Structures are given as C-alpha cells and as structure tokens.
C-alpha cells in the first residue's frame, strides 16, 4: 500500500490536493461574494439587503444555492442539448485551472511556472467560447444577442488588456507570477501601481469589461436581454455560469493584486493574508462600481475601447519601453 502511494509522483499529489483546495476556495468565494454583493447593494440603496435567512441574512447564499440545486434541469425545444449543457462546463473549467498558477503566499502556490501569466490569459479567453456556445445553442434571440455582444466586447477589450500586461512584463522581464510579486517591495510606494498608474487604470477597466461586470455587463443586460446568454439555463446550468463569473472575478482581482499591488508582499503579517486582503479590496471596488454606474450603450462600450483604451495602452507601452531602453 505504502509502496503504491510512493510510486505516485509527488507533483500529482500536489496538483490533486491543490485542485481540491481550489474547488473549496472558489465555492467559498462565490458564497461570500454573493452575500457581499447583495449586502453592499442594499446599503448603497439604503435598505438592509438580505436579512431574513440566518442572523443578518448570512445564510442567504446557501439558501440560494440549495434552491438552484433543487431546480428542474430544462433544455429548450430545438436546442442542441449536447452543446447546450457543455457550455456551462466549458465556462467553469478554465476558471479553476487559472488558480493553479496564482501565488497566494510566498509558500502557497500549486505550480510555480514560468508562463503563469500567459496560462491565465489564455485560459480566461476560453470563457468567450463558452458564452458563444451557450448563446448559439439556446434557440433564443436574447441569448444569441448576448453572445454576440460578449464576443465583440471580449475581442475588443482583450487587446488593451494584453498591451497593459505587456508593459508590466517588459518592466519585470518575466511571465512568472511569483517573480513579479516578489519583485515588488512590502510598502505601497514599492508596488508597480506607482510606476505604472496609467496601466493600472487601463487594466482595471479592461478587467471589468472582460468579466462582464457593470458598467460593461452588456452580454447579460437585464433591461434589454432578460438575462443574455444564460436566459434559458435553469438550476445548476445557471449556477455554473454564476460560479464561473465570480471565479473569473476572483482570478482577475488576483492578477490586479499581483501585477500592480505587490501580490503577497506586505509588512508584518504573513503574505497570504496580505494577498487575500488586496484581492478583496479590488473585489469590493468592483462591487462598488457596479452599484454606482449605469450600463454603457454598446457603441459607447466599443468607442471607449478602440478610441481611448487601445491608443493609451500603446502609448503607455511605448513610454515604458523608452524608459527601459534608457
């Protein structure tokens, strides 16, 4: 028995345990973020938010989850049921993979790979495919419009996102997320947000657009498209999309924290807590933005990207290169 266990390469065990931890982390984050989102929305509207399930409504996300699990799974008539149910899985799976390269602390990283940043950018790109399939196979005009919007939005915003990431990568000379975080100091004036403030703002805007968060939540604009690409999904199909959306939010916040806010670096307390605190501050700002700004129109959305973000990102990259060359 022991020999059999010893025969398994240590790397596999690390990945297996790490993957279980990721599943737990993603689930817990979704529960916490749903609660925070609804509470903050309530406080900003000057109402109590969820209050009835458990003390101050803390069991509300669990009740929501149970409701979703108990719902009937339903495929619309004329839909391609194979692709229809594949779409939520395609949406959630890459989100989970993204976490393996993220350094949560100086000693808490599942795989320390040289291409961590590329891995995350590549896998988050797959989400577009999932939304496209979901919209296309739903046999529903709202879903199709939502999917079409998501594709044009993601394609447009991926460009400034990658260019701003490049300017940080040229500064550090590595795609390794651990090295990027370790290259920054413990104090805020040693973080890359000080060297690259424009890149930070551009990256944050692109992250909002890529994760389909308000004010760029056009693929699921409630007022015009009912629920966009996930209109026809019920029960766990919807829950998977929902979980994936929050998982991508967490991944994006982790990247923001690593690239610009010093990652796990911080004085006194252990790195893990600094990292989680930074990630949650970014997430709270995202929630805050969602309940402040109205949704942009579609032409405005693309105008912001093509007329402002891409030229500014290129400009920022050129300045960065010039400074490095000198």
């Amino acid at each position, binding site marked *: 028995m022991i020999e059999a266990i010893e025969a398994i390469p240590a790397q596999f065990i690390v990945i297996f345990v790490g993957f279980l931890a990721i599943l737990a982390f993603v689930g817990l984050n979704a529960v916490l973020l749903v609660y925070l989102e609804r509470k903050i929305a309530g406080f*900003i509207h000057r109402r109590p938010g969820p209050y009835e399930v458990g003390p101050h409504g803390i069991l509300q996300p669990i009740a929501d989850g149970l409701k979703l699990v108990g719902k009937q799974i339903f495929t619309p008539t004329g839909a391609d049921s194979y692709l229809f149910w594949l779409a939520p899985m395609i949406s959630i799976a890459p989100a989970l993979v993204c976490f393996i390269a993220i350094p949560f602390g100086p000693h808490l990283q599942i795989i320390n790979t040289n291409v961590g940043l590329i891995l995350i950018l590549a896998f988050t790109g797959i989400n577009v495919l999932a939304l496209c399939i979901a919209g296309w196979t739903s046999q529903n005009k709202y879903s199709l419009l939502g999917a079409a919007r998501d594709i044009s939005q993601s394609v447009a915003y991926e460009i400034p996102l990658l260019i701003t990431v490049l300017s940080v990568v040229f500064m550090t000379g590595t795609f390794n997320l651990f090295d990027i975080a370790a290259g920054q100091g413990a104090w805020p004036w040693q973080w890359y947000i000080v060297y690259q403030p424009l890149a930070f703002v551009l990256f944050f805007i692109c992250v909002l657009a890529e994760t389909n968060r308000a004010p760029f939540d056009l693929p699921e604009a409630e007022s015009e498209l009912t629920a966009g690409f996930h209109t026809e999904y019920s029960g766990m199909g919807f829950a998977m999309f929902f979980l994936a959306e929050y998982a991508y939010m967490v991944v994006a916040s982790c990247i923001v924290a690593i690239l610009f806010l010093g990652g796990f670096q911080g004085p006194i307390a252990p790195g893990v807590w600094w990292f989680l605190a930074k990630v949650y501050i970014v997430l709270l700002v995202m929630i805050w933005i969602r309940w402040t*700004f109205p949704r942009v129109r579609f032409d405005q959305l693309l105008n912001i990207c093509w007329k402002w973000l891409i030229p500014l990102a290129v400009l920022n990259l050129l300045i960065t290169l010039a400074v490095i060359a000198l």
Partner: protein
Amino acid sequence: MIKTLRETIGGLWSLLVGMKITAINFKSPEITVHYPRQVVPDLEGFRGHIELVPKEDDPFKSKCTACSNCVRICPTSCISMKAAKPKKKEAPAAEAEGSQEPAAKKPKAKPEPVLFELNFNYCSLCGLCVQSCPTNALRFSDDVYLAGFTRQEFVFDLLARLQNQAQKKEQ
C-alpha cells in the same frame, strides 16, 4: 482636441463624484424598515378606502348630512346609504313622515345616515366622493392592512367603523 480632452477629464472626474455619492449613501443609516417586525410610524398621504369623519363635538356621530351626493357621483356605485331623521320623541316622528308641517315646526331635525356601506370590491379610489362632499364628511383612511378571502369582507359598514374608532379613542 482640447475640448475633447477637457470633456474626457470632466467625465472621469464625474465618475469619482458618483462613487463618492454611493459611498456616502453606503455609510448613511437605512431608510427602509424591517416590515413584519417594524412598521412605518405614520401613513400620512396614503389613500386607502374612504371613511367617515366624526363631528368635532361628538366623535360617535359623523358629519354626514345624508345629501347622497357621494352616492350619485360614484362612477361604480359602490356607496349605498339610507338616511333618516333622528327620532328624538316618539310621537312627532310618526307625523314627520305624513306631512311637511311638523318638519317646519322642528327645523333642528336634520337627516343623518342610518346605513352607510362601501362596497370596496368595486371602488376605484377615484376620490370623487371625497371631493363632492359638501360637509367634508368623507376622507381616505390610512388602512393598508387589507386582505381577505371573501368578497363580503370588503363590504365595509362605515358607520360601525366610525363607532369603533371613537370607542378606541375613548379608551
């Protein structure tokens, strides 16, 4: 070019102003109440079903003079009223129905309603009855807790309601 830049910077500044406003609202105390456990203190301005206004000197009597303006103007005919003159003494009351002479003798015997019913099932809350009342004897109640299983529950005897309110006030 400069105009565009100025507009853009102004727009970005307005985003920060918006975030400040939501932050202030986030910190401010909530203005809703936890309904089943708390209720709002007053329902001033709420237009519920109509009710009778009591006289200033006698809370058990309504100001209504039984002119039946409200009955006639109601577009859905949901008010029904029966009027009678108050019988202070037994003997002249019998004469009052026969001829006009006793009425002239007693000018103080004004008619008043003995039955004032509102069929709230048909009421559209238009308020014409309240507007047309010459003595301001009708007003909107602030009764929001209206729910029932039968139509009969929404045929309100407004005179009985007036009595109840007066009794509650005395206690």
